[in-house]
Each structure stands twice: as structure tokens, then as C-alpha cells.
């Protein structure tokens, strides 16, 4: 019996290749319309994918005139798509460094209501001095991104990831701050809620304090799914201790096994964590066609596209084999970054998925109504449910 693979796609503009917007079927002029995003997410849902992530950030992707510049808020894109989809998980990216956990907690809880239990959130830290200047509340040094061993960079990132862990803790406590049955509507006593089932979260940490209670009742999933992308120890610690899903970028299957071991070592033993491999994918009907397409895009961009994630170029059948191999290393699923949309997205939903289904490695229909359900995660009780009073 083949172990099923969890599969998601990471959506970013016209695709992850900087020249993807120039592909014949790309819709670059529609990137700022609801129609575009709904079509793309609906395509992912047709492929029975577990969820989509939506990239976001607080600065322009590029200052060049030959690249896509500008984007819409990812939480709001997800909300706009929620009433028009039925099964697929919606996982917007949120920058934790510059936002309020109170706002994000209720936004994701509300996305969970609007989607009937399909919300998640990908937490991102930002060390960018440019993004910090957009908020004016803190100043980050301009560090070389190339030098991963620079101690100043390490120190900054470690602090930001520690802060992110506190942020996730606050968001999660707020989701739990109303017990499930707190709304009683007891006409006889005149009480709308049982206030004994509402709880202050009283969080106080090194970076901030938040009192609670949330203004939004506990969302349908109880705890919407939290995910994060990581490339190094500080992020792995965050994934291991705070996330339900970690996205990682191994260079090969052996490296994948090492990363999985490192995250498992950092994690709380009792909580299941999915570790997904991130791959940038350029697919074609033949290996040569895929390579030629990638080469054509590189030529348009003026350089050979590489990524933090491994770049896969080949046929959907080859990709299916590749995923099976990496799965053996301990990854439970994958987040594929389509090089171009809709081309690579449709190759995933219409060719890769049937191939995986033939191998018995992927669902043939949606088997659960919530994102936690799709991911095999149970619905947790509120952490406050057993406690007495307020």
C-alpha cells in the first residue's frame, strides 16, 4: 500500500519564474482582479489539492520594469475565494514581524468561518530594512543576504523567529479563548454567552503582551492550520514548536532526511507535524519540451532562474517518481511552486495528480470537509476548556 502524498501549490502572481507573465497563456493584466485568483484557486481545487498558499509581503517584488510589480493582500484574496470554493484549504501568507497577532488571529478565524473550516495561515518573518521602513516602528540593518553565516544576520533572524514563535502562541491562544460552547443564548437567564467559557489569554513575553479575549468566537476548526517555510535552524525550531506544517527546501533526498530529523528533534513529541518539500516546477510533455520551456523563460528574463527550492524540470510522470523518492526520505507532502500559471498549474492538476492517483498515492475525491481533516489532523479541544472560570 502506497502512503498517500499531501499536495499543495504556492501561488505567486503569474508564477514563480520572473518571466512567467510573458507566457502565451499568462494573464498578467488580470493579476489584480478577483477573477484571476478565483480561476487559479478553482483549478487547484479541480486537482483535489489539499490547499493553496498565497505569497505576500510588504514590499514590491522588484523595482524592474520587466517584472511583475505589486500584489494584493493574501488574506483578502483567500477571503474573496472562500465562498466560491468548497473543499480546498486556503493558506494566505502573513508577515508576523510588522502585524498585530490580535488582528491576524481574528482574520484567520473569520476566513475559517467564511470557508467552513478550510483556513490556514503561513507565518513569515521579515528582516527587510525596506519593509521595516514602511512601518517606521523598528529599524533593521542592511545585511548581505548572500552571507548566511554573517553573525549579525544570524542574530537578527534568531530574534525574529523567536518573536514569531510568541506571535503564533498568541494567535493560537486567542483561537482557544472562547470555548466551543460559550455562546448559549439562554433566554431564560437573559445571557447570550456563558462568560465562564471566555478566557483572557494574558500573554506576556519578551516582545509584547496581549490580554485577550478574542472578539471572534472559536473558529470551526478550533485551530486553523499554521505553517512556515524554513531554511535553517532558527526556522526549524519555529516549525517544530509552533507549526502544523513546515515547508523545507532540501537539495536532494538525503538532505531532506537530515532536515526532517532536525525538525523532529526540535518538536514537541505529542504533536504531529507535516514536513513538506518545496519544489519549483517546470513541466512539459517530454523532458526536452520542459527544458526548452524553462530555457525560453530564462532567455526572456535574461538569466537562469534558480531558487531557494530545488528546481524540477521534466514531465509530470517524472515528477511523480521524484516525489515518491523524496517521500521515502520522510517528507509527508509537497508544496509545488508552479513556474508559470496556468501552464504548470494545469500540468500539476491534470497530469501529475492522475499519475499519482494511478500509483495509489493521491486521493480521488475530497474525503474531509475541513483542512485539518484533509491533513489528518484532529480537531483539538480548547486549551482552556478544562480550566475553572476566568
Amino acid at each position, binding site marked *: 500500500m502506497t502512503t498517500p502524498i499531501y499536495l499543495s501549490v504556492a501561488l505567486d502572481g503569474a508564477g514563480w519564474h520572473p*518571466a512567467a*507573465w*510573458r507566457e*502565451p497563456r499568462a494573464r*498578467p*493584466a488580470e493579476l*489584480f*482582479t*478577483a477573477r484571476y485568483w478565483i480561476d487559479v484557486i478553482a483549478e487547484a481545487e479541480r486537482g483535489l489539492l489539499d490547499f493553496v498558499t498565497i505569497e505576500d509581503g*510588504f*514590499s*514590491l517584488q522588484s*523595482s*524592474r*520594469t*520587466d517584472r511583475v*510589480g*505589486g500584489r*494584493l*493582500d493574501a*488574506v*483578502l*484574496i483567500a*477571503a*474573496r*475565494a*472562500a*465562498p466560491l470554493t468548497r473543499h480546498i484549504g486556503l493558506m494566505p501568507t502573513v508577515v508576523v514581524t*510588522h*502585524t*498585530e*497577532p*490580535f*488582528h491576524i488571529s*481574528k*482574520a484567520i*478565524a*473569520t476566513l475559517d*468561518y*467564511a470557508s*467552513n473550516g478550510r483556513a490556514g495561515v503561513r507565518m513569515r518573518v521579515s528582516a527587510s530594512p525596506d*519593509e521595516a521602513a*514602511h*512601518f*517606521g*516602528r523598528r529599524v533593521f540593518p542592511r545585511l548581505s543576504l548572500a552571507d548566511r553565516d554573517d553573525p549579525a544576520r544570524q542574530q537578527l533572524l534568531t530574534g525574529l523567529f523567536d518573536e514569531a514563535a510568541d506571535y503564533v502562541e498568541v494567535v493560537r491562544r486567542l483561537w482557544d479563548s472562547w470555548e466551543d460552547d460559550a455562546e448559549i*443564548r439562554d*433566554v431564560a437567564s*437573559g*445571557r*447570550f*454567552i456563558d462568560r465562564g467559557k*471566555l478566557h483572557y489569554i494574558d500573554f506576556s513575553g519578551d516582545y509584547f503582551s*496581549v*490580554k*485577550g*479575549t478574542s*472578539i*471572534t*468566537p472559536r473558529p470551526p476548526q478550533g485551530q486553523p492550520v499554521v505553517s512556515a517555510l524554513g531554511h535553517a535552524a532558527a526556522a526549524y525550531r519555529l516549525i517544530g514548536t509552533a507549526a502544523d506544517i513546515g515547508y523545507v527546501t532540501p537539495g536532494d533526498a538525503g538532505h531532506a532526511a537530515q532536515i526532517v530529523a532536525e525538525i523532529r528533534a526540535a518538536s514537541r513529541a505529542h504533536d504531529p507535524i507535516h514536513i513538506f518539500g518545496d519544489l519549483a516546477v517546470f513541466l512539459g510533455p517530454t523532458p526536452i519540451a520542459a527544458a526548452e520551456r524553462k530555457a525560453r523563460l530564462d532567455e526572456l528574463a535574461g538569466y537562469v532562474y534558480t531558487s531557494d527550492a530545488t528546481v524540477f524540470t521534466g514531465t509530470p510522470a517524472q515528477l511523480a517518481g521524484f516525489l515518491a523518492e523524496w517521500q521515502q526520505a520522510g517528507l509527508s507532502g509537497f508544496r509545488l511552486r508552479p513556474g508559470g500559471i496556468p501552464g504548470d498549474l494545469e500540468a500539476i492538476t491534470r497530469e501529475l495528480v492522475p499519475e499519482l492517483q494511478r500509483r495509489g498515492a493521491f486521493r480521488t475525491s475530497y474525503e474531509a470537509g475541513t483542512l485539518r481533516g484533509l491533513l489528518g489532523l484532529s480537531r483539538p479541544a480548547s486549551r482552556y476548556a478544562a480550566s475553572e472560570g476566568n
Partner: protein
Amino acid sequence: MTKQIHLAAHFPGVNNTTVWSDPRSGSHIEFSSFAHLARTAERAKFDFLFLAEGLRLREQNGQIYDLDVVGRPDTFTVLAALAAVTDRLGLAGTINSTFNEPYEVARQFASLDHLSGGRAAWNVVTSWDAFTGENFRRGGFLPQEARYERARTFLQTTWELFDSWHGDEIIADKASGVFLTRAKPGRFEHRDTHFDISGQFDVPRGPQGRPVIFQAGDSEEGREFAASSADAIFSRHGTLADGQAFYADVKGRLARYGRTPDQLLILPAATFVLGDSDADAAELAREVRRQQVSGQTAIAFLEQLWNRDLSGYDPDGPLPDVDPDPGENTIARGRASVRMYRDPLATAAQWRGKAEAEKLSIRELIIEVTSRQTFTGSPATVAGAINDLVQADASDGFILVPHITPGGLDEFASTVVPLLQERGVFRSDYEGSTLREHLGLVSQAPPKEAAWPLSR
């Protein structure tokens, strides 16, 4: 000339206007309730739907207040989801300027405007209380006198961000490989005592340029803020004399800012009870008032004025003999209405006099002295009253607050609106696609320089 009426729907709030004990009352959280009200409003060709906001649960006597509806979803997220189930309806929400940053709010409103095809509106409010600030990492409460300064500066800064893209940057020409007509779009720089920010804004200009701006404050500063900066006022003055005075006052301030009277709409909040006849409606309205003011609610209201624990008093008995505690109001927290009682001792004396003269119990008195329905009557009576107030310049229309969620607007939509349409004072169909068009406001061209009357 006959004025055209503007109508909007207010999602029922977390106060005692909303009758949750009615068997027809549905969820205040589930998206289906919001979708129901929005679809009703759009079917009736309303200008917009409005969502209020609160960022800390109210407390009384040190406990979370449990007699009214408690809890609400996130404003932006609901509005974006509603854009999926409506086509023309404006989508308006309150967003606080104290517990947010301009860059984030601007990109959320610009995104909502794109995702709704130009239907976003923002009711700009400012909190100053430390009580709410405890929910935020920034803390960030303000001295009360600094709140309009903060709101003005915040709004001005978001305008600079909205206007940082001019609308002609994106050509996305595949053949030539030109996506942006110029490098570094969205450049901005804003430096004052509240905000010191610079860089590049990352959301292209939305269909409306800037979202429609609402203002809700009633103070002198609030009125001036509205006259200088808002497209519409969410007012409290729904009666003829009150409404006319407010209308004349605020519209009279516009010339100072180089604006014309049609550039600021006055839209009071209004409640209503409909019946087959005026007598039926009056009877229903009395019943609704009793549902809105239970015995416990009456005591709670009294405590808010008295600033004391009065839980030992019988709501069906006389008013307390003791006087209000004149100090800082410590009984009720997170509630704006307690500040309306500027002289608690005088108000208490007045209430006692009224209760004695009319032989009213605590509950009966509170039913009398707290706000009653703005419009009560048959559909014809209510349609006439609305039209009369608008034509008499007491308002430009109304923001209707149903007391039942989510079906409380259905009857109004199917009975009152057709009568207004027959009179030719309310649209039979949408003419434009953006909220600015519905409201008759000119679209915002990006100014060469920010036109800010109250310079920083």
C-alpha cells in the same frame, strides 16, 4: 429639486438594539448571516452594507458583559468574502486608526477595492483607551485630545499611499516585456510626529483611487474632520429638527475646504419597525422595546449612569435613592455610550423626576429614555417619513439597523423600497459599478500634491 435618497444596511451590532432572544435571530458570526443581509441589501439596490468594529469585549462590574450579542468576525475578511456574493453593493467597514499602521490599512483597503471592483469604504475611527490597547503589541493608547490629530494624520498618510500609484503604471505587454511603465512605482515619504515612513507602496491604484471615507464622530473636532476629509458622515441625528441642524452645520463647513455640499453625504443610523398598519407597527414596536430592554438590561444601563453596582435593585421597582458615583466611570469598560452622560448627577435627577411623575419602574424608565425606533409604521408611512426627512435636508438618506439577524431587512426591502422607487426618489437599478458612483461622488484623480487643508 427632488433629492435622490441613499440607503445602506448596518449589520446588527453588539448592543441591545439587536434582539437575539427572538426565535428568528440567527448567528452573528457565520458567514451565511452576512451573505443574507448583503444579498437583501443588493436586491433592494442599497448603496452599501456597513460593518462596525470593536477590539475588546465590553465589561461591566469587572466581567465580560453577557446580556447583548457578544463577538464578531474580522471586518476586512468579511467584506472581502461578501464581494464574492454581491456585484454592486458597496462594502463599508470601521477600521481603527489607533491599533493599525497606515501601510497595512492602505494595502488592505486598496486590495479590497481591487477584489470588489471598486466598492470599498472605510469608516475611520480612533480609540484612545488603554483598555483596548491591552490587546495590542503596540499598546498604543492616546491622550483623548490627540485622537483626531492621529486620525487626520493617519488618513492623510494612507491617501499618500493610495495616490502613490497613478493608475497608468501597469501595461503588462508580453511582446515588449514591459510590465511597468516606470521603475520604482509607489514611492512615498511621510514624516511627522505620528508616522515616519518611506519606501514604495506595493498595491497598484484601485478602481476608486481612494476608498470612500466615512466619519462617525459628533464632536466639534469630528465635524471639522468630516468637513475636511470625509465623503460621508455616519450621523446620530435622525429626527427632523436635530437632523436639519446637524446637516446645515456640517454642510456649512465644507466651503472652507473648497468643497461643495454634494461632496459630503449625511447618513444617520436609523432603526425601524414595520406593520400592516400604523397601529400594528406601534404595538410591535412596544414589544421590540421590551425585548431590547429586559429587566437585567435596564439595571445594567442604570449602573452605567450611576457608576455603581445596582444588582440588588428590582427592575420593576423604583429608581435607587442613592446618587450616582461622580468619579471616573469604572463600572462599564469598552463602551462609548457611557461618555454621553456628561453630568451624571443632573441626568439622574431628571430620570428620577420623570419616573416619579409618570410612575415608571426602572425598566419602564429605561425603555423611555434610551433610543426608540427611528421609523415605526406601515410601509407607506415609513417610506413617507424617510422621504420627508431627506427632502427637508435633515439627511441625504439613512443607514438602516435591523434588530433581527440576518432577516431583519427583508420586509423593508420588499415593502418600503418599492414605494420609494415608485416616488422616483430611490434608484430602481444601479447605474454605476463603484460605490463612489452610487453615492454620486466624483472619482478621485491622483493629485499632483496632496490637498490637505489642515497642514501637519
